[in-house]
């Protein structure tokens, strides 16, 4: 019973951390639009926090480049378990139109393990909320799956 209560609390109270990896700010504005009265994500208990140590879900927008990949990994490492990563927009998914640029590493999944991909240029607020809800569903997955995810992250860092 305690397990179901904790499970429910995790799904009901996702705190979001938003990190912008050199995005054009299109996706960031859509992320912030989710907090406005029109979409009001606080209905689902979601809060936008500025502190990785308090966050459950990391929202990443924009292309990862060689300058900010360390910052992204650092933020990810500071988040306590259980945690989920959601990549938002074409750039975060694959590098988008900047994919071939000399300074671009590529999608977010080249650096940290991504749980949900939200496509779009920019992604719609509805799609972002859907993505977060999909990420929350993954909180009820088995522990083993998470473990394998972690080992992958360590691999990426090496």
């Amino acid at each position: 019973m305690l397990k179901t209560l904790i499970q429910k609390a995790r799904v009901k109270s996702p705190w979001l951390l938003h990190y912008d990896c050199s995005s054009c700010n299109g996706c960031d504005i859509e992320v912030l639009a989710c907090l406005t009265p029109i979409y009001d994500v606080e209905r689902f208990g979601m809060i936008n926090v500025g502190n990785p140590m308090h966050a459950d879900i990391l929202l990443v927008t924009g292309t990862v480049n060689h300058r900010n990949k360390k910052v992204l990994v650092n933020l990810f490492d500071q988040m306590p378990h259980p945690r989920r990563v959601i990549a938002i927009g074409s750039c975060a998914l694959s590098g988008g139109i900047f994919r071939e640029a000399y300074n671009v590493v590529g999608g977010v999944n080249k650096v940290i393990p991504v749980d949900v991909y939200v496509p779009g240029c920019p992604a719609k607020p509805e799609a972002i909320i859907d993505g977060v809800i999909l990420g929350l569903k993954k909180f009820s997955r088995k522990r083993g799956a998470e473990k394998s995810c972690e080992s992958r992250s360590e691999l990426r860092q090496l």
Partner: protein
Amino acid sequence: MIETVVFILIGLACGPLLGGLVSGLDRILTARLQSRIGPPLWQPFYDVIKLWSKEKTVVNVWQAFCAYCYVAATSIALVLFFLRSDLLLIVFVQAVGAVFLVVGALSSTSPFSQIGAHRELLQMLSYEPLLILVTVGIFLETGSFKIEAVYSWHQPLLMKLPFLFLVLGFVLTVKLRKSPFDLSTSHHAHQELVKGLLTDYAGPCLALVEIGHWYEVVLLLGLCSLFWATNWMGMIAIVFITYFIEILIDNVSARLNWRWMLGYVWSMGLTLSLVNLVWLYVS
């Protein structure tokens, strides 16, 4: 003896239960004032349960120790309130809890945590004298620091201590971490100070701090209720009205810096207290 044990248990249970509900109500009302729908009433409980189940990450042992001491002190203060004990004792025990919270934040080297802790110290500097003056006013009126005496007093304290009730309102705004005195944890401005005082408390430690804060909120609202302690309806009404006004102030005001806080709270608070105390003394 059995009565005492029952009161202790009620005090221990009431803190988290009432505090959580009050905080949930706060979030719903705030959302409605901003023309949003807001989270469910039980949201603060979900938050605390989730935080409790997260991975334990502490900066050092002292931080965890301070979080536990904070909860212990604030819960003791509330239990003393339910035992109708000495008001001065309650204020001092509550202050000890607040100091432990600051020491816990100071034990980490993070600049956000440090600045938040220093601002919390300034907040304490501004509200603690006023809290003492409120209890002094209650003493001058009823002739005793005991809460027992307040309950047996023949008329509501608000009739004789209206200015001191306003002063308690200042204390409440600072203590509930509401705008315009929302300096140390920057509840509404992550960009400035991340989470200030609470930046380095994470997971279960943050859950403890949150529960401690609920105890404090219930204690302060309890102090408000003493101003109309002649009947139950009056106590509930005064608490609800005060809390609603607090939320309204929180939503319509911008944050001030610490100089403004110290200036406002001290000049207004001390003047109002002095006027009320002189009035009591003369009459």
